[in-house]
């Protein structure tokens, strides 16, 4: 009896050793799973700020961020709970990874069995677990869910950067699509007016003249600002405002007065025009253009300051590099937008051209602005760099060329082929693609070749045909193809041109339809 108790104790000890080893492996597995699920939780939680950046404060309330975080945590916790492996599953994985011939899993499954074979097998498995390395079986790994976290983080960063570029200082009131649409609309307005900011030229204009020009631009722009834009503009901008230099303050007094004469209620919110031109956040695409010009001017001034005129510009001399890089990036975006808009414009111009084709056709035939268009293209291709006088001239030419191209496009719509070689002005795409008529001709030629190839291919269809024939004496023939009856050599069978029995109803129906059609 005592021996029996001893045996039971030994069995229990072996069983507990086995269970302890599997439990240790299970902890490692659950830890790995925990890391993975935490990654997913973080991903979901980060989706909240991402949505916030995309939708803005107007559409996305702050408490939703907490809901996202809670949802992520709950989801991860639920998955962790649902997917937590049992001891038997862990032991199977242990066997598979350590090549222990399913000894551990079998012992775990038959853990409660008192069968002598099961006891013996459990004892061997317990001995085996002392020799195996559980850490090697389940090492701590980097979870794949980190990719999700990184992706959402990158997306959030991109949205953040986009917002920062579109409306400085960083604000998240309006939804991002609205901000982008506003920028596009302003750009469209500016293009319709064919007006660009006149950036001050390096070495030709004094700071006073530049400030005056800015004030004039601002005032004119405020006249164009729609009421809703004016409302946005009149919002307090104190957070992002930087102090202007004293000299520009003095100059801005005059400009302010000038601006107030033009539109007192709207300009009153900006204070000093020079200061606002330099410091207030970009409210529209026009402002961005001005800022681009300003950055060029600043760059020029920076050069001057390097030559010993530091005090004149104050802190503005330190910014040009960053501003120019920003504007360089933004200019690409701007150009893409303008291309899109100009295509839309081109369409509308084409519609208008249908109505005015008679009157304008002759004018456009005589007004072949190849050189002018080329200049306009070159001017519109490169951004009008502030500080270069050529840019301003090019803009002026560009507006003329735009009109000419609009007329030309209308002529094209009416079938006037006199300007085949010209480009579609205003359209960024295809400006350097060469003659589109030639391209179309090439494409048509290619299509002709293709159809010819198809025809040839159809004429030479080859393939394999497998005929399954039964054993015995047979004669291969094609029904309905023979015109004469003859005695076959093998077996003396009579071969006739007859319709197979299976097809006779269909043939009959077919001929009936033909007869009915004739009647």
């Amino acid at each position, binding site marked *: 009896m005592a021996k029996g108790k001893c045996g039971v104790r030994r069995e229990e000890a072996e069983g507990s050793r086995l269970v302890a080893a599997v439990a240790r492996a299970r902890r490692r597995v659950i830890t790995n799973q925990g890391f993975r699920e935490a990654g997913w939780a973080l991903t979901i939680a980060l989706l909240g700020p991402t949505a916030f950046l995309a939708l803005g404060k107007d559409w996305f309330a702050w408490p939703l961020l907490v809901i996202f975080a809670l949802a992520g945590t709950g989801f991860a916790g639920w998955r962790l709970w649902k997917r937590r492996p049992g001891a038997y599953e862990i032991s*199977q*994985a242990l066997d*598979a990874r350590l090549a222990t*011939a399913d000894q551990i899993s079998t012992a775990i499954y038959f853990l409660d069995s008192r069968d002598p074979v099961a006891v*013996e097998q459990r004892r061997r498995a317990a001995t085996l677990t002392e020799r195996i390395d559980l850490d090697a079986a389940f090492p701590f790994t980097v979870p794949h869910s980190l990719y999700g976290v990184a992706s959402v983080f990158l997306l959030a960063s991109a949205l953040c950067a986009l917002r920062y570029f579109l409306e400085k200082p960083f604000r998240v009131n309006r939804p991002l699509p609205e901000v982008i649409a506003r920028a596009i609309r302003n750009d469209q307005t500016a293009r319709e007016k064919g007006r660009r900011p006149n950036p001050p030229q390096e070495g030709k204009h004094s700071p006073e003249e530049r400030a005056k020009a800015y004030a004039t631009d601002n005032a004119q722009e405020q006249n164009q600002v729609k009421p809703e834009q004016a409302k946005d503009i009149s919002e307090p901008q104190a957070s992002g405002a930087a102090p202007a230099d004293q000299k520009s303050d003095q100059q801005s007094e005059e400009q302010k007065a000038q601006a107030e004469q033009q539109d007192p209620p709207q300009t009153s919110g900006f204070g000093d025009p020079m200061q606002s031109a330099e410091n207030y956040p970009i409210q529209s695409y026009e402002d961005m253009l001005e800022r681009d010009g300003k950055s060029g001017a600043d760059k020029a001034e920076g050069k001057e300051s390097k030559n010993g005129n530091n005090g004149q510009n104050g802190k503005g001399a330190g910014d040009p590099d960053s501003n120019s890089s920003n504007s360089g990036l933004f200019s690409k975006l701007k150009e893409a937008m303008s291309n899109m808009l100009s295509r839309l414009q081109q369409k509308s111009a084409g519609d208008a051209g249908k109505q005015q084709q008679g009157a304008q056709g002759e004018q456009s035939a005589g007004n072949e602005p190849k050189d002018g268009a080329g200049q306009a293209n070159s001017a519109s291709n490169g951004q009008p760099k502030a500080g270069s006088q050529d840019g301003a001239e090019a803009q002026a030419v560009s507006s003329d060329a735009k009109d000419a191209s609009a007329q030309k496009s209308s002529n094209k719509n009416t079938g006037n082929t006199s300007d085949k070689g010209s480009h579609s002005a205003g359209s960024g795409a295809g400006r350097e693609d060469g003659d589109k008529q030639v391209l179309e001709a090439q494409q048509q030629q290619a299509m002709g070749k293709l159809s010819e190839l198809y025809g040839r291919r159809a004429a030479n269809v080859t393939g394999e045909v497998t005929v399954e024939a039964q054993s015995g004496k047979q004669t291969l023939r094609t029904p309905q193809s023979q015109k004469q009856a003859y005695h076959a050599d093998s077996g003396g069978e009579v071969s006739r041109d007859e319709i197979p029995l299976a097809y006779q109803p269909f043939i009959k129906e077919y001929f009936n339809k033909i007869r009915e059609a004739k009647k």
Partner: protein
Amino acid sequence: MPSDQSLEKLSHQIQLVRNEIAKVIVGHQEVVDGVIIALLAGGHVLLEGVPGLGKTTLLRTLGRALQLRYSRIQFTPDLMPADIVGSMVMETDDRGVKNLRFQPGPIFSHLVLADEINRATPKTQSALLEAMQERTVTSGTVTHELEEPFLVMATQNPLEMEGTYPLPEAQLDRFLMKILVGYPSRAELDIIVQRTLASTQPQVERVVDRDQILAIRRAAMDVLAAPHVREFASHLVLATQPEQAEAHPLAKKYVRYGSSPRGAQALLQSARVLALMRGRWNVSIDDLRYLALQCLRHRLILNFDAHAEGKTTDALLTEILNTIPVTTLAQ
């Protein structure tokens, strides 16, 4: 009482048989193990290979190494069922009374070598069906039981198909294993030639008797198989059946009839013996993998597409084996 000693003893006895066979047969360890497994698992084995590879010699050697009754039947086209199972003969006793007495055929042995089994007619081949499955022979109205262990070791030649009768599916399914006998390697061939030229032939001794074989059989029946191992066998068999939802895509494409449930039974029975031979009290998935081809290759009937594309049952089974998951843990 199972213990390390008992397990070692069983493994040692099996090893003795292997050693005796190795005195005559060079190489072919997989084939030798397959035949021993079939004997200990209570099944029958079909050896297929070209002539001259030692199929008959292997089975004859096994019969000599075991203290069991051994008989050899050369299957020919004119062989009749009575030539196998036995027949009723007229016998006159001392008083001059004539009686019918059952004369047992060569099937009444422990080890029956059915050489060139596909040369006999289906009628004669079918005479083996009852004996192989139910271990009985019915003659007239009397049913005679066959003594355990009973092992039919059949050979067939895949090349000479003229004048042969392929085994019917029902009979093929009754073989626990179908083992392909391949050509020996260069080193093995050298040893075979060397032994052939030797003046004395190796003497095979009887190392294991009937009781020991039956004891190993009983021990093999006690070997544990965990549920996930059993599920692996079931999953494998179901994957070969094209009409099943769990069927492998290749089985749906190339298999006309998949393995019967006998396939899963054969797989687990054989795996138990193999586990014992490997010194374990539990079946592992590796054992099933090792035996899958031998136990299932003759249970699959391929369709025309498979024959046209040159697919073999071994190739299909290997691909199916590789797709069956071992563990449910998703890591």
